[in-house]
């Protein structure tokens, strides 16, 4: 699995930036937050069928890893 090295120390600039984001979001209404947050872009393969049903989550995970482009991020490795 690819490792993501993210600096999450509370004193880090990254962490402080996240906190500012959280506080800014908290000042918005739920409607604003949701309407800003949900976007729609075409995802190859994933969006090409109107309906899929998987017997188990493991079946779904296997399908994601074998059928979807890895860059979509649905697999356990890139």
């Amino acid at each position, binding site marked *: *699995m*690819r490792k*993501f090295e*993210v600096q*999450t120390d509370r004193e880090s600039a990254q*962490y402080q930036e*996240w*906190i500012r*984001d*959280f506080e*800014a*979001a*908290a000042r918005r209404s*739920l*409607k604003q*937050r*949701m*309407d*800003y*947050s*949900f*976007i*729609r*872009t*075409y*995802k190859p393969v*994933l*969006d090409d*069928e*109107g*309906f*899929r*049903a*998987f*017997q*188990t*989550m493991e*079946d*779904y*995970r296997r399908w*994601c890893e074998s059928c979807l482009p*890895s860059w*979509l*991020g*649905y*697999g*356990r*490795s*890139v």
Partner: protein
Amino acid sequence: MAAPFSYRLAQEIAACFSMHKVRYLFLGKSGAIILGFPDTTQDAVLFVERSSENSRALVSALVEMGFPLDAQRQEEILQGKDFVQIREGPFDLDLVFAPDGIERFEDAARRALVVEGLPVCHLDDIIRSKEEAGRVKDQEVLPRLRAFRDWWWERQSQGASGARE
């Protein structure tokens, strides 16, 4: 292409599912966003209680909302699959009946929060399910999501409103 999910559509789910008595919770990043997590996502993800009665109610509600579920698709939902992905209809929707990291719907429902009528899994459950799923996109979001949980807890302990358990 379906419209992006929105506050209005979430409220339509809440109203329609309530009328049909569907037991469900928002899960995944869509749930975190409802709890205040500032990020983007594409799909609404619902954790739906697995029972024949609830599945029948779910199918009725989805048909009423305009999802094109023919008899075969309805049957697939009624059979109790773990995961159903719908990309036709008023918006994209993922239905999860057995999410990674959450043993029973009842447990998640007990910990759940309600925000403006929308039932949402607790952040701990959202995080646990992403940890267990272990996808690349989950690994990418988890550090920020954990930071949000810590910030959210501190804010709740200071008396911030917006969600009720």
